């Protein structure tokens, strides 16, 4: 193999599994260390810069970081990254003084953001400090979008939303709330320099089976019903409720129903339990609230009496897999099953809908009704119109919306400066030795053997009584510290300098995970098999040095490295060093502009 190019920012970035997996590339180990140090405000600000909504995401994120966490490969469970994020938000001081200054003199560019959800708010957050004039539209009277309408209060209390949405609005964003946008053409005619569409996937899928029309009064679309609950239009539901669907919306629906009078609430899903789209922890929380989840039942019809819903008929199915591993649900042939109920909540998916975009406005759509976009710049076929969040590529989640928001803000900034949108400068990276003494590092390199800590929940009876009682109580400071110590500091990289190595084997002997090898070079496949501990995880790179004095090479399997720094401590020559790798993703602003041009329209 060729020696590893550690100059490529992606190499060490990939070693920080959590950060690499996060769509917004939040520097997770960095903020976790700050939590351990009790520096909650600093930790919060690192989060805020990267993901805009630390308090909200610390409660609701889909956590792509946690399945990626190295700790999950080293022992059983990942670090509770998401809940630690909440700790930073819970214990921080007033951060208002640390928010970016907003120039009083604007740069003369006006940007419209459609839909006041996480994607649009991120665009506004990134552009306001640069002197842009941002106009935020939403049909609802509040900002927040699905964060406010679809996520129930027992998971995300309103003050948390108000606070973090408020930081963005407080920058002086012009808001046009409670006002539907009916025409893109009309909006374009208002002379905006760019329009960002972040209106989400606002249409809940319906279930068109016999009886749907007759029973309509007691059959509700999940996300619409959740929004009605959120705005206080709905305050009760029948005693027996069936929730159809297996995603996180279904989990929110059933748990909300339990709080509005539902005593016998069931979730009934077509697929098997494991394949359900809902996050495992959300399923757990639902089950803990006495909500059974029934699988392999396909809704066939609504039964009704005198125009009133009486239940749902289901066909029993089982999963069959073809040679390509594709699943097919096949009827088992058993008699259909009937479940009685008073209300049905349909949470079987969401769709995009852009009824307000005229088809001749210059924005092309594909056959699935999604806008045709440049994946990187998020620009549509109309140069001034960009998309982000669920509106761009269909329903995803908040953290993806934030990532899109950052990218779109860069595009808008470049667009307004007359630059090529496709030219994206690489992120800023920083690699600094953490050595402070012979066996002293600037980070805590002792490896905790604690198991993952659980978050305490509110007492169930009290929680089910009031929809506003938050279920998860969050970590207290002590638990937060212990959980933070489980983080392996994957951003403190093992950096190897070939010319200093005397091949004494000290690092090989001390490495607790058998990551380090000195062996004859070879092709990657062959090398992976020949290591002391064969490197069987192809998603994790091998770190290969240049040829050493004996002609061998150093090969390190990054897979299960604890970043304990013992290799560097045992190294007599400093060939190994522990260096902190900080990567600062490109954000909109002068730094991301082309070097070829002189900065023109920057902040004054």
């Amino acid at each position: 193999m060729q020696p590893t190019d550690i100059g490529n920012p992606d190499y060490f970035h990939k070693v920080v599994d959590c950060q690499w997996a996060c769509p917004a590339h939040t520097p997770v180990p960095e903020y976790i260390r700050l939590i351990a140090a009790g520096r909650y405000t600093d930790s919060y600000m690192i989060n805020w810069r990267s993901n805009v909504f630390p308090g909200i995401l610390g409660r609701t994120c889909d956590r792509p970081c946690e399945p990626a966490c190295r700790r999950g490969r080293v022992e059983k469970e990942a670090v509770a990254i998401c809940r630690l994020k909440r700790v930073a938000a819970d214990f921080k001081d007033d951060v208002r003084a640390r928010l970016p200054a907003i120039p009083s003199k604007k740069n003369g560019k006006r940007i419209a953001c459609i839909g006041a959800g996480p994607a649009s708010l991120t665009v506004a957050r990134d552009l306001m400090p640069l002197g842009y004039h941002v106009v935020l539209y939403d049909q609802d009277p509040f900002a927040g979008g699905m964060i406010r309408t679809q996520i129930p209060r027992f998971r995300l209390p309103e003050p948390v939303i108000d606070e973090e949405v408020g930081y963005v609005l407080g920058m002086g964003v012009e808001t046009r709330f409670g006002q539907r946008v009916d025409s893109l053409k009309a909006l374009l005619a208002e002379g905006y320099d760019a329009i960002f569409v972040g209106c989400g996937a606002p249409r809940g899928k319906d279930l068109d089976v016999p009886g749907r029309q007759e029973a309509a009064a007691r059959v509700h679309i999940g996300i619409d019903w959740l929004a009605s609950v959120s705005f206080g239009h709905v305050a009760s539901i029948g005693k027996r409720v069936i929730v159809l669907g297996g995603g996180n919306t279904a989990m929110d629906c059933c748990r909300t129903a339990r709080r509005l009078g539902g005593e016998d609430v069931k979730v009934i899903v077509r697929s098997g339990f494991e394949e359900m789209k809902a996050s495992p922890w959300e399923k757990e929380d639902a089950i803990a609230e006495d909500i059974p989840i029934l699988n392999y039942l396909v809704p066939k019809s609504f039964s009704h009496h005198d125009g009133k819903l009486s239940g749902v008929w289901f066909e029993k199915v089982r999963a069959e897999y073809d040679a390509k591993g594709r699943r097919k649900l096949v009827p088992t042939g058993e008699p259909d099953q009937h479940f009685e109920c008073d209300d049905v909540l349909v949470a079987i998916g969401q769709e995009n809908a852009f009824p307000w975009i005229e088809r001749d406005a210059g924005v092309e759509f594909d056959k699935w009704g999604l806008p045709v976009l440049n994946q990187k710049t998020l620009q549509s076929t109309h140069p001034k119109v960009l998309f982000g969040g669920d509106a761009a590529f269909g329903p995803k989640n908040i953290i993806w919306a934030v990532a899109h928001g950052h990218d779109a803000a860069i595009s808008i900034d470049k667009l307004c400066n007359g630059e090529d949108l496709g030219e994206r400068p690489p992120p800023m990276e920083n690699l600094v030795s953490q050595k402070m003494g012979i066996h002293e590092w600037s980070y805590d390199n002792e490896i905790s053997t604690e198991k993952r800590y659980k978050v305490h929940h509110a007492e169930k009876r009290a929680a089910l009584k009031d929809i506003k009682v938050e279920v998860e109580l969050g970590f207290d400071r002590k638990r937060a510290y212990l959980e933070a110590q489980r983080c392996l500091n994957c951003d403190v990289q093992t950096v190897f300098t070939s010319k200093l190595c005397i091949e004494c084997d000290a690092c090989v002997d001390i490495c607790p995970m058998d990551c380090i090898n000195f062996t004859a070079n070879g092709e990657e496949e062959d090398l992976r098999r020949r290591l002391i501990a064969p490197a069987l995880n192809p998603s994790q790179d091998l770190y290969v040095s240049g040829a050493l004095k004996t002609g061998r090479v150093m090969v390190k399997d990054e897979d299960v490295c604890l970043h304990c720094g013992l290799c560097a401590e045992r190294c007599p020559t400093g060939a190994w060093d522990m260096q902190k790798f900080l990567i600062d993703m490109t954000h909109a602003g002068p730094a991301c502009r082309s070097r070829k041009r002189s900065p023109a329209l920057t902040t004054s």
Partner: protein
Amino acid sequence: MTYLAKPKLHHPRLPANKLGYTRRDYEGAVSTLCAGCGHDSISAAIVQACFELDLPPHRIAKLSGIGCSSKTPTYFLGNSHGFNSVHGRMPSVLTGANLANRALIYMGVSGDGDSASIGLGQLAHAIRRGVNMVYAVMNNGVYGLTKGQFSATADKGSKSKRGEVNTDAAIDLVGMALQLGASFVARSFSGDKAQLVPLLKAAIAHRGAAFLDVLSPCVAFNNHEGSTKSFDYVRSHNEAVNRLDFMVERAPITADYAPGTVRAVVQHDGSTLVLRKLAEDYDPSDRIRAMTYLAERQAAGEVVTGLLYVDPEAGELHDSLNTVERPLNALGDAELVPVRPPSRASTRACGSRTAGGAQGVNRRPRPPVPPRAPRRSRRVPGSGAGA
């Protein structure tokens, strides 16, 4: 130097041996030797060898004297018996322990100062008696603990870190061991575990005095230009006479070897040593020729390594002493002190049996235990009586 314990976490697919132990179970406390010390690599090789041999840790006794090398038993086999003796006196303590309990595996660890200076006489006699043991010398040619004076194994003409030239002749421990009748003699290098681990395994399986001289560079005081014990010097002058593939069971040799390049030696316990020849015509069963060869190559400036001599039929100290198969420490008073029946009065005065035993008096006399014919004991781990 580190004060941080090695994390308990280990590779998720770390293999276990026949006893269900992983390699990590054979480790000791974290080393306090200098970072990069060759001794730590030898410790790691001992850990690896004991793991691969499926040795129960509680059947091993590790003994050492004083010095950097003699600190290492703390850093390997944390669940084995250990004894840190007086400087240079490890061979006597080991001999005594072996006489008292022949059922354990004895691992003597020493350094060039401990063995070639203060303990030279001790080393000589333990070897010439054929004590059943592994005697490993971690040889760095320098007194590391006292900041780098030449030791007795430093080559004449080699330079100290401060530039002084050694004017004394070096003691060649391997040559001495051959002359004194060691039945297994090898030399290796801490920086070559592929060679060292099989040699250690063979030495452990060997019945009799197995002597291993392991060159182990001192990174702090003897790894500079002009030293003959540095990583660079040993690597560039290393001439291995053979490569040892150690095999535990008596088994047909299945690996592909060119004809005439392999020699198989079956030891007492049935273990087979498969030696791949590297030096033409080197015969590790000929003591005299081995000594000559070593002297010649050494004069030519080479560092000869590999299995230099082995006598698979060698006896050991217990054979010559005609001791019983059962470890002496497991014998009761009756067997150990075969005296005539005591008088009534003295029996009464003793009071109890245990008190009587302490005074060398048995209540119920037994005939003396006749010495048994010496039996070739297989050093199968765990087969002996308790320690």
